[in-house]
């Protein structure tokens, strides 16, 4: 039923029809290019999470993906594009029953991962920000920043159990 659905298009959001991958599983690829606003971000998060649930992800994996996706998009919009609505955030999500791979790229100035302070130290514990990256890296199985910090690729396998601790 998912395959017959028409593709809602609008506000730069695009959706691709699924193509079977070599193992015979149906791989859904969703692609979006959105402006830097939270309402649109919310909408595409819902579309991606609907697909994650449809592919049979279990509780802990759904929780992990939802959290990392929210954090990564908030970072791209707020810290990357600095809420500049003229700048786009590109999002790609590839979902199979086994894993989700998400790529998020913003048009901001980038950042150096090693320069982000540890939010769990005593001195930083009462700061109101700076925890997004920690959560992304804790809850996803693979996380890679590239293009000067503007591009984030993250993978989470669909597995029961607590998040893998790095």
């Amino acid at each position, binding site marked *: 039923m998912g395959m017959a659905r028409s593709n809602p298009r609008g506000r730069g959001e695009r959706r691709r029809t699924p193509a079977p991958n070599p193992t015979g599983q149906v791989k859904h690829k969703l692609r979006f290019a959105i402006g830097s606003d*939270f309402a649109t971000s919310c909408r595409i998060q819902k579309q991606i999470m609907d697909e994650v649930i449809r592919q049979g992800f279990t509780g802990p994996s759904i929780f992990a993906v939802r*959290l990392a996706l929210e*954090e990564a998009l*908030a970072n791209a919009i707020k810290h990357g594009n600095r809420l500049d609505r003229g700048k786009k955030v590109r999002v790609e999500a590839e979902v199979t029953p086994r894993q989700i791979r998400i790529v998020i790229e913003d048009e901001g100035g980038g950042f150096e991962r090693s320069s982000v302070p540890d939010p769990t130290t005593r001195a930083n514990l009462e700061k109101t920000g700076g925890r997004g990256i920690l959560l992304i890296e804790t809850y996803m199985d693979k996380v890679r920043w590239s293009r000067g910090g503007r591009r984030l690729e993250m993978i989470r396998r669909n597995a029961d159990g607590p998040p893998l601790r790095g």
Partner: protein
Amino acid sequence: MGNGMADMTSPVSVTSQQDIRIVEFTNNKILDEANIAEIGQTLMALVEENNPPRLLLDFANVDHLSSAALGMLINLNNKIKQKDGQLRLTNIKQQIYEVFVITKLDRLFRIKPDRAEALSSFEH
């Protein structure tokens, strides 16, 4: 509150036990910025209205929260401390509690397993 009419669109419901304000989140997600800003304003208003503020946040309905929500809670905690008030958190589900542990915020906030224990932990 005041007039006894429940505001159906409010992201929190507030009840009182003596001078303790008990806040229950009505939404199962405290994720997105607009929602968090609204909750933050409501909670800050409660802190302003009560001297000293004594707040108990009940997370029984909450299945998801983001780092922005944690930031809002830290902001609230700082404000309450400034006013010599007290803040307690309770009924936090395991998955959410894990987020507090990962961020070490379980050391910053006073988290109690249930409402009764949280209520009795307020100091006079």
